[in-house]
């Protein structure tokens, strides 16, 4: 009787701790299953898919080893696209980060009415890239766009903007930055606000001028934030898609054919999913390298 009772108590405790143990797994289950199925699985599938081709003769999926990679690596359009993406990245990322840093420092000033400015700068962050691209496409219209209207008032002749192989990529940079600069400046502003004021006051007392306290105190303290913004910005711009689809479709003369747009063109417009997956695999590798560098930089600062 007594033993049975004890047994009962023991099994109760056992049941309770078992239930305790599985609670976190149950809580995680829905989100985790969704993430595994819709995020992890497609990642693996990208790499697997890149080794298959659709046979022209039978229409079947056939294992092809590295044939897709060989195909894209021998394809001048792929290289041109990669080249455009690299040039774009090398311009747009430093530009956006420098402007974001400047804007966030302006927004960090304790001046009357600064809250209104911060609210206004939040507008582009809330608006989608599509809307931005549509509005700027019309603003940059080569015949009657408002930007050309303003240039006309200043006595400058019409510019072709999105219609010129020399200016189209710059126009895309402008469109991406209209959202990007206010967005990334939010992160840097949050970082600036985390710097305790006494630190900057101490620098002032020690005789540092504004430039010195910026380079020797502010910037080092912003290192983590800037590293994060650099990587997140690089990845976001690396994957820029909507503005290309809605303005230039990669043209003129492939001058704005950024890499994600090229994979979309291959996969969906030409139905060449093998080549598309091979390009995506190359892009995955590039993102891995970028983020790997980030983790390395972040580790160094701790």
């Amino acid at each position, binding site marked *: 009787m007594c033993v049975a009772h004890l047994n009962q108590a023991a099994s109760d405790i056992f049941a309770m701790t078992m239930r305790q143990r599985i609670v976190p797994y149950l809580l995680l289950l829905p989100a985790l299953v969704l993430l595994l199925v819709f995020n992890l699985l497609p990642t693996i599938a990208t790499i697997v898919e890149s080794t298959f081709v659709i046979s022209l003769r039978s229409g079947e999926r056939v294992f092809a080893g590295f044939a897709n990679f060989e195909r894209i690596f021998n394809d001048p359009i792929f290289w041109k696209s990669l080249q455009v993406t690299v040039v774009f990245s090398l311009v747009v990322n430093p530009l956006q980060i420098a402007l974001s840093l400047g804007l966030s420092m302006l927004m960090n000033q304790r001046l009357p009415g600064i809250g209104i400015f911060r609210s206004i700068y939040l507008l582009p962050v809330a608006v989608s890239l*599509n809307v931005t691209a549509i509005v700027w496409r019309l603003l940059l219209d080569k015949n*009657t766009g408002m930007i050309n209207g*303003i240039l006309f008032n200043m006595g400058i002749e019409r510019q072709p903007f999105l219609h010129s192989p020399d200016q189209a990529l710059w126009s895309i940079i402008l469109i991406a930055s209209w959202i990007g600069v206010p967005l990334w400046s939010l992160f840097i502003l949050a970082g600036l606000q985390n710097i305790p004021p006494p630190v900057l006051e101490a620098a002032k007392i020690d005789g540092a001028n504004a430039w010195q306290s910026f380079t020797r105190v502010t910037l080092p303290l912003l290192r983590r934030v800037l590293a994060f913004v650099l990587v997140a910005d690089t990845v976001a711009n690396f994957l820029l898609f909507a503005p290309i689809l809605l303005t230039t479709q990669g043209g003129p003369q492939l001058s704005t054919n950024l890499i*994600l747009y090229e994979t979309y063109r291959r996969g969906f417009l030409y139905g060449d999913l093998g080549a598309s997956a091979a390009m995506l695999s190359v892009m995955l590798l590039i993102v891995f390298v970028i983020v790997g560098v980030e983790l390395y930089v972040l580790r160094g600062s701790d």
Partner: protein
Amino acid sequence: MNAHVTRRARRNRKPLRAYLLPALVYCLLIIGVLIVVIPLMWAAAASFTPNHKVFEYAYPFSWRALLPVDFTLEAYENIFARGFGQSITNTLFLAFVTVFVGGAANALAGFAFGRFEFRGKNALFMVIVMLTFLVPVDLTAIPRYILINNFGWINTWQGLLVPGLANSLVIFLFRQFFAEIPQELIDAARVDGASWLRVLWSIVLPISKPVLVAAGLLMFISQWNSFFWPLLVAPRQELRVVQVEISLAVGQYGTIWNELLAGSMIAAIVPILLVMPFQRYYVQAITGTGLE
């Protein structure tokens, strides 16, 4: 003597500098505001303008381009007559389901990561972190499309909705917030014999307003603004979302500029109206995920 002069000069300069610096800051801020506001003002004004007059004051530029001087609702009437309302309803439906169903799943996961110690926690967390930062969703859209195709979910609500429910950024947001709740609050309820779900519902939820608003805004706006995935997975007319609808109009009605802009203004105003009253939460939702 020399030192005396420079000291005096410095003292004289100081009040001037005290004015100059704020003046310069305001000037630069105003230039930035013009760059932000003028495109939106022109687009809004042009959406209320007859189509043949959309560019009238834009080239050559006059201030009238920024105000709807020839006011008409024609563009809005036309797009709604063509079924734009359907895309708004569709997007709102998707956004609300994502916020409530996805929000619940993400909150539970965030609670598990924030409040429990269990085997494999770090490994699981690493997997999610890696997935989020190493594999952006747009990069795997094509294989995800193939997967959805195998499920037979192309052109269905499930196909649009289910892949976007779990959101690792939102999980981070919840985890961070839940980890900071004082343990005593939870212990007290647990000693009273409350189950975990009960603790979540009646202790944690009522004090979680900031994170709920932040996560809700993040999910709602990212669903409202989502474009690439709906474009791929649900091209059927009845399932079109706002962003896809306006982007297709670029191709189909590319020269009916005022309608294009009317659709764009509707697509823009919803997130703007949501963000403005909750700025602090929204900024925290965006930056909180990256600054941990």
